[in-house]
């Protein structure tokens, strides 16, 4: 019985031609979704983008120069459960062609120079270990030194990466301390939140934008919905922890559709930088 249904499904929908949208639960033509930057034509659900796709969709063509691309993870805890962390890293590296879950560099956005970074939700759910924390910190420091606006797109459902233990936890402190210095130097950090961004990533750099925007219907929060349900032993309200929920509660500046993101970010940056497109140096007033 089970086999027959599977066979029929296969026959009706050849692999690769359709995909099921998690937003409306309907089958969509893959080509339609591809043409709209991985957005569902029916319900506006925004599918996860790999870092490569994100760079292609958001930044000016061929403007991105990657930095510190050779930083690679190791296994400081010798973390082994059912699967060893080492093996999981290797599998993710093979599947994505990346060394770890974060890509950073410089680019242009509608001709404006920016420092740019993103986490890749397809590499261990975009979680933050030593490499991700180090690369984020370096791009923050680079943006601060070069007086570049920083755009960082988070897609980090995995939060702080468990497999590197307290070292991952402390990347929250490291990235936030770097953003504190950037803030004191008058820098501009535009944080773009995408589905999903949770836990240690949401509770550090991702939440510290001078301007914070999100793609629609993204899952954004501190604790995972399952953990909350298990703790309070009750169902969660409709739309809980979505972009729309966060906007309503005052934690976002705006929700922007993927197709309009480049123009909107360029417009926002335009209000904050000087005529040369760079951060305006301010005389230091005290330590605050």
């Amino acid at each position, binding site marked *: 019985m089970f086999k027959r249904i599977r066979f029929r499904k296969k026959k009706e929908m050849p692999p690769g031609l359709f995909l099921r949208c998690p937003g409306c639960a309907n089958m969509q033509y893959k080509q339609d979704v591809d043409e709209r930057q991985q957005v569902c034509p029916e319900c506006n659900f925004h599918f996860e983008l790999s870092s490569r796709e994100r760079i292609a969709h958001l930044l000016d063509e061929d403007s991105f120069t990657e930095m510190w691309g*050779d*930083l*690679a*993870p*190791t296994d*400081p*805890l010798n*973390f*082994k*459960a059912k699967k060893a962390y080492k093996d999981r890293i290797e599998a993710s590296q093979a599947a994505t062609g990346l060394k770890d879950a974060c890509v950073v560099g410089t680019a242009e956005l509608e001709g404006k120079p920016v420092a740019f970074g993103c986490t890749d939700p397809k590499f261990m759910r975009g979680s933050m*270990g*030593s*490499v991700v*924390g*180090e690369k984020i*910190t370096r791009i923050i420091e680079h943006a601060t030194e070069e007086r570049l606006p920083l755009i960082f797109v988070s897609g980090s459902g995995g939060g*702080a*990466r*468990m497999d*590197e*233990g*307290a*070292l991952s*936890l*402390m*990347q*929250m*402190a*490291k990235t*936030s*301390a770097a*953003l*504190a*210095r950037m*803030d004191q130097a008058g820098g501009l950090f535009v944080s773009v939140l995408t589905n999903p961004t949770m*836990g*240690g990533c*949401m*509770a*550090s750099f*991702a*939440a*510290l934008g001078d301007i914070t925007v999100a793609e629609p219907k993204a899952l954004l*929060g*501190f*604790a*995972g919905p399952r*953990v*909350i349900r298990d*703790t*309070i032993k009750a169902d*969660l*309200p409709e739309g*809980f*922890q979505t972009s729309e929920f*966060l906007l309503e*509660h005052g*934690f976002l500046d705006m929700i922007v559709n993927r197709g309009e993101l480049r123009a909107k970010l360029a417009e926002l940056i335009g209000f904050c930088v000087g005529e040369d497109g760079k951060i305006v140096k301010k005389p230091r007033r005290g*330590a*605050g």
Partner: protein
Amino acid sequence: MAASGPSYLDFEQPIHEIEQKIEELETFADSTQLDLGDQIAQLRLLRDDLRRDIQSRLTPWQRVQIARHPGRPVAADYLEGAFTDFVELHGDRTFGDDGAIATGFAKLGERRVLVVAHRKGKTTKDRIACNFGSAHPEGYRKAILKMQLAEKYGLPVITLIDTPGAFPGVGAEERGQAFIIARNLLEMAKLTVPVICTVIGEGGSGGALGIGIGDRMLMLQNAYYSVISPEGCSSILWKTAEKASEAAAILKLTAKDLKRFRIVDEIVPEPVGGAHTDPATAVDTVREALIRTLDELEALETEQRLEMRYAKLRSIGVFLEDGVLEARRVEVGSTAD
């Protein structure tokens, strides 16, 4: 301590048995006027040997259990025993007053300081009022507001960390748990007064880190500090909370591990068997460590101290660059325990 008398962890049972024996002999000696002093003294020596033996073989999971022991000194014990003249300051000026974090002025020796402490409570009623040490956003907002008050008047900040984690609930998310904790990390990094953070019991993930950025990080010998609770890790890895003991071992969450990762600067020793066996001594040891550390920090120029604070955070992490291990960041070899 709790009126119900001491409670014992399963691996402390042999000690429990000897202590029962001692008590029996004491009662017997009292009622019969017999001199059993030698026998009792011998049993006490035996008990102390046994404690040392257990201490030397503690597993990470047993340390987690000690860190959660109901008789372990909590914020209230430190506020009474390590500090004087504690004046509590309430409220976050936005939403409410979170019982899970206590803040206020106090004296540490001769010095005026500001204390921020996770509060767990000592009686069942207290514990519920403190939400078992799990703070909401208003707790973290209260903490940073009072720290900024300390900044204004040049008072050093002492934080005492003891939480299973920030509270995972509907209200906490509605009020921006992630955003408020993140803001605390950024604002604590900006403080220019000396800041000492001490993990006195449970260092539960982001909820611990939310009051955990400073110039120095101290950690009690049997405290733990982890990116996720052993139970949470166990349910992710094995789909059951039953394997918390294995999870505790692979997470590398003991004071010794954290020192090796250069996250913790100093391990504060506990009385043999754990802080719960002699709370007064444990509290006093922390007090001395805080005073000594504050002496060291105040001897530094502010600019130099702030550079060191940043450099320390900046250096945490282990990775490969150009194929070379950035291993200098991790101290190889063992630390005195």
